[in-house]
């Protein structure tokens, strides 16, 4: 092992593997080259490393015994404590020990512990009711502090669990966080209240959404594939969920809202508890979940005003799957036109 390299051990707990699949998308020369550029060395990753069986066990044992330095323990997936608190919902193959046990033990050896994805961060989808596997995050169980490592956990380097939330996170969030840690450039002040790196978590998914004009005029989509704002009817939580999701390209160009479907708030602790993801919950016709930090009365007043001022172009395009009225000064007797 190169002493100058930032050593990373990656474990897959109760995961779908999707965070790793996202990771593999990063880098113009591929993610392995990109990680090397940042001085990150994968000492073992279950999806890509050569070592298998007893060779892999030897690496884990050496780290656990303190014989091998570990700069970062990266965990993907929920920690499964069930059934009945036994942790037997996930035995680390070949070891006879639960993954919960391995993670707790190795976390004590790591310079920093990184949760990749909302499962490892907060519990995620496996923690959804009835929580069959008693799933939890590393330092949060849904919105509650605690989790597998406990509220007071600090890694050897002093940081709480760094939570790269998302389901799956943007590959850039993963690699940029690891790069910043390798450069010793990410401190406690760079994390928000639940451990998410602020460089992506100080934004809302809504920022940069291509449907913003529809949002401003409250011109709402009514059906899947309509172009309008999806907040009023289709369950979109982008004004409440953190992430620079619409300021980055996903898979070259996309994002959830660009793809024609609602933000489900996957970066938020406890997002899995929602019921009816595809419809906006309302009381007396008014959406329950309004934009973060916006007074309700203001929002209602602005919404009423903007609805009354909605241009015909915006109103009609909102309920169509393609642009039916192009931008342009209205002409007498018609719509659109460029003059």
């Amino acid at each position, binding site marked *: 092992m190169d002493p100058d390299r930032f050593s990373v051990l990656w474990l897959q707990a109760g995961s779908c593997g999707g965070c790793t699949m996202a990771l593999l998308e990063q880098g113009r020369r591929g*993610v392995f080259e990109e990680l090397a550029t940042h001085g990150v060395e994968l000492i073992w990753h279950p999806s890509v490393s050569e070592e298998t069986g007893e060779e892999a066990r030897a690496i884990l044992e050496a780290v656990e015994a303190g014989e091998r330095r570990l700069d970062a323990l990266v965990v993907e997936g929920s920690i499964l404590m069930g059934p009945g608190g036994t942790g037997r919902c996930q035995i680390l*193959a070949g070891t006879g020990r639960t993954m919960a046990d391995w993670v707790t033990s190795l976390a004590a050896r790591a310079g920093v512990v990184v949760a990749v994805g909302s499962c490892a961060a907060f519990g995620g989808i496996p923690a959804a009711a009835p929580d069959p596997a008693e799933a939890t995050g590393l330092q949060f169980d849904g919105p509650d502090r605690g989790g597998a490592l406990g509220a007071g956990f600090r890694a050897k380097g002093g940081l709480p669990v760094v939570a790269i939330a998302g389901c799956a996170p943007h590959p850039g969030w993963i690699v940029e966080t690891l790069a910043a840690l390798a450069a010793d450039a990410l401190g406690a002040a760079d994390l928000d209240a639940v451990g998410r790196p602020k460089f992506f978590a100080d934004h809302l998914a809504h920022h940069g959404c291509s449907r913003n004009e529809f949002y401003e005029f409250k011109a709402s989509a009514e059906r899947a594939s309509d172009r309008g704002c999806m907040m009023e009817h289709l369950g979109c939580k982008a004004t409440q969920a953190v992430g620079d999701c619409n300021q980055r390209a996903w*898979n070259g160009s996309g994002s959830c809202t660009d793809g024609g479907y609602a933000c489900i708030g996957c970066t938020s602790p406890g997002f899995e508890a929602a019921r009816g993801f595809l419809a906006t919950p309302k009381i007396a016709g008014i959406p329950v979940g309004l934009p973060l930090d916006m007074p309700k009365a203001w929002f209602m007043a602005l919404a009423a005003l903007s609805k009354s001022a909605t241009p015909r172009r915006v109103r009609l395009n909102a309920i169509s799957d393609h642009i039916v009225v192009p931008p342009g000064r209205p002409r007498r007797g018609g719509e659109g036109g460029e003059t």
Partner: protein
Amino acid sequence: MRRVVVGPFNRVEGDLEVHLDVEDGVVVSAEVAAPLYRGFEQILVGRPLEDALVIAPRICGICSVSQSIAAARAIAAFSGLEPTENGARATALAHAAENVADHLTHFHLFFMPDFARSDYAGEPWHRVVSERFAAVKGTTARSFLPARARLLEIMGIVAGKWPHSLAFRAGGTTRSLDLGDTMRLRAILADVRAFAEGALYGRRLEEIAEIADLAGLDRLKGDASDFAAFLRLADALRLAEVGRGPGLVMSFGAYPGTGRGGEPLFRPGVLDVASRTRTSLDVDKIGEDPSRSWLAGAAGPPGRASSEPDIEREGAYSWAKAPRYDGRAVEVGALARQLVDGSPLAAALTAASGGANVAARVIARLVEAARTLVAMERWIDAFERGAPFCVEGAIPTDGSGVGLTEAARGSLGHWATVRGGRIVRWQIVAPTTWNFSPRDGAGVPGPLEGALEGLAVGEAAARSPMVQHVVRSFDPCMVCTAQ
């Protein structure tokens, strides 16, 4: 006789543990365990129906589009909704992108690195193969990973993102593609073609797709391509003689409406490999047996099953159930799909050695990837401008439906029942549940368990690379196996 444990078994998707009973250097019997259980089938119960479109893809990060499609088809099955033509085509395109990405990820990152191991240091082919394919360090990742990312840019256009998209609905897809989008899709496929026709195949995709017999493969063996490197080492290590399948293969049919006469591109069916008897698929013959699983209940059809944990169940050794077709263990995946579809090459690959085997599985995967890429180019040109990508319609609050599709690794089915708009049952039988099934109540081993029986592992036992090759030849997806 001694019992050895292989695990953690990496470079597979998810968690896998294999137990081998070895006598005189030969595997006498094997037990294959899925050691992870999250309980997706319980999480779905009680939720509004369409929440399945959020939950189901998150079973699996490597085949999430397949999970989305199976869920959407289960909803479509009892609502009478059908995807629009554009929506069906966009669904097929994204699905094919995922499946091809998975096939190529398996070859480059999961399967080939085992041949770079020092166990093979004395072999004449080893130097080149280890330079190309050594895990993480090999040169192939530098060209493959960017090509994979480029291929998955199809998701950015069609489905917002990958993995875990909400774009796939019973009535089609949620993003309408415009003229610019279709041109970008063309450019992506041209770039992927350039990669594939370079290092991977070293030949035109059409030429690979049309190989019809073993002589056709022989003609490639002098090439400098990675495919040819595999063919040569497969001969040297006699990979066609190991990892025999159970003799019955199945496919639910892939990419509906995109093949000849409106058929799926790859037709559905069930085939007895030895007798070449092909029968049509009868979903009612599918059953699941939890006798050796840490799950409660008795054998029966998925539409009446449950998946409650019973960690103390006697004789249990896996979270996976044992799916059976008419009582028989079945192999699924690219080779099965190509055999069922009538591919003469797949037939030749299995006839020569008397059944499915390690080499045939890998070759079928690579040839299928080429066939699929060629088809994808055709689909892009068939989008109808101005026509809708998605329709909505009333979804009954009560009913049952089965959603079937072919993931990269084989046949995936969702069995859904809804009452009062809430899910009351959602049972999933995934490709690797078939391939890596535990024994059933009658003691019949699953396909991998059978494929490992009789394997010569010598003194190395658990460390034998041949165990790695046999297991990985199935391209297991363990996170789907027991959800």
